[in-house]
């Protein structure tokens, strides 16, 4: 690497501005600003306007259900295990036939850092992060999402007054 050292080095001191220019660069800068002044604004008026987020957006969690409306989750606890924020707590429940369900499935959406590891870990494809990103509430307890809330996070999309 040392031999061809000269080739990759680019000296930028040559780009140093000449002294003696005073007003022209200032005017050029102002012209640039003025040009942009009349361009279309890139800001959007949230929340009345919203941008479409990507397919992979990591928003509020959703527990998926199968065609019969039952939770796909088998309470294996893998998502709770990988969660770096320890935001998930699960109480499993086993039926007579050996079918497992989560009796309680709580995701603390304040602790959660939305890393998406739970989605990646789940062997049943039962949990996913949705595109919903604006949830507001008054109490901390309301951010502990239980199964009812987790089943349908789309209800929290703010639709305007």
């Amino acid at each position, binding site marked *: *690497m040392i031999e061809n050292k000269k080739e990759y080095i680019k000296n930028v001191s040559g780009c140093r501005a000449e002294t003696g220019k005073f007003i022209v660069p200032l005017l050029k800068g102002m012209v640039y600003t003025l040009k942009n002044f009349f361009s279309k604004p890139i800001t959007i008026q949230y929340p009345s306007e919203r941008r479409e987020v990507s397919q992979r957006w990591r928003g509020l969690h959703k527990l998926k259900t199968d065609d019969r409306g039952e939770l796909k989750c088998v309470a294996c606890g893998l998502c709770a295990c*990988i969660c770096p924020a320890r935001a998930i707590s699960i109480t499993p429940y086993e039926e007579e036939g050996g079918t497992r369900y989560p009796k309680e499935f709580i995701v603390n959406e304040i602790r959660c850092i939305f890393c998406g590891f739970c989605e990646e870990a789940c*062997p049943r494809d039962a949990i996913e992060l949705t595109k919903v990103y604006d949830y507001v509430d008054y109490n901390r307890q309301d951010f502990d999402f239980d199964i009812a809330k987790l089943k349908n996070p789309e209800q929290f999309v703010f639709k305007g007054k």
Partner: protein
Amino acid sequence: MAEAKTMTLNMGPHHPATHGVLRLVLELDGETIVKVTPHIGQLHRGIEKIAESMNYQQIIPLTDRLDYTAASLNNLGYCMTVEKLLGIDVPRRAQYVRVIMGELARIMGHHLWLGSHALDMGAMTVVFYTFRDREMIMNVNEELSGYRLTPSFLRVGGIARDITPDFVKYVREFVKWLPKALDGYHTLLTDNIIWRKRTMGVGTVSARDAVNYGMTGPSLRGSGVAYDVRKALPYSSYDDFDFQVPVGENGDVYDRYLVRMEEFKQSIRIIDQAIENLPDGPVKVDNPLVSNPETDEVMQDISALIRRFKIQCEGPAVPEGEVYHSIEGSKGELGFYLVGDGTSKPYRMKIRSPCFILTSALPKLLVGHMIADVISIIGSIDIVLGEIDR
């Protein structure tokens, strides 16, 4: 007759121009600085300690929060360190995507630096343009990983998922757009008389001093030392790409500014080459001890299911040993030192943070200058407190 006394001035931690919560205790003789004591620690979150209680995958989101202005680069540094300990090679497609994400993160960091540096010095317009363009990179991050600022997209042994067609489209758009935007930044600043007066000859540091203080990155290159980890010890396929390392001569704030402005261009060159020559193939290493099996496979195959449980609960199977690896972060040489003890958690993780070392050089840079220059010098070494305090 009263003797000449110095005045002590406490600058920060709430000063908006100290780039976070840096506190400087300045001793002033009139308006000239005679002594500087940086106080850090206000943003300490104990990331190194928390890492000791987490498995190797869970640490990835922690590293995002070091230098949050260029999050993917921290992911890259960490993942490469673990891979070095494991002794695995990442597939070339993943390496290229990592390079693209890393260089985009570098540009994102430089955008934030340029915007806030100019803003601190009173040139308010620039920040609007840099943030406008930074938005485009965030959209790329969002498309690829689902998150805008802290993607956590890299994994030990590759990347989390394959790229999407839209990702390629967005990156190409950005590559086309940025040179135009750069001309705009230059129009606003480079020749500007106020900018020149406030940056030329301010905060000068000689090459010898810069090396002795352990400065790295653009701040070192501004003094004329062409040290760039990407060239000196190429990693992640950087030797496939044709790019140059910009260096300055004078070591003042203005030269550091020029070096970073040129780095924008070089990063764009790298991204352009990487996206056009993106190899095909897998994005995760084919090693049952490291990579998470696909969900389809898990539903079919019991051994894949067991493997997933093992990898998700314990993380990749990292052997005993210690390892150090460094990459070129957006602020300088970012290194990770890991001690593995054969369990699923590291015994120790130490981060060589470039900003921490740059902060220790602050007294050298500041003494002898006026108090108004403090802002421009802090801006020029581009420190991020999330990385200093960890």
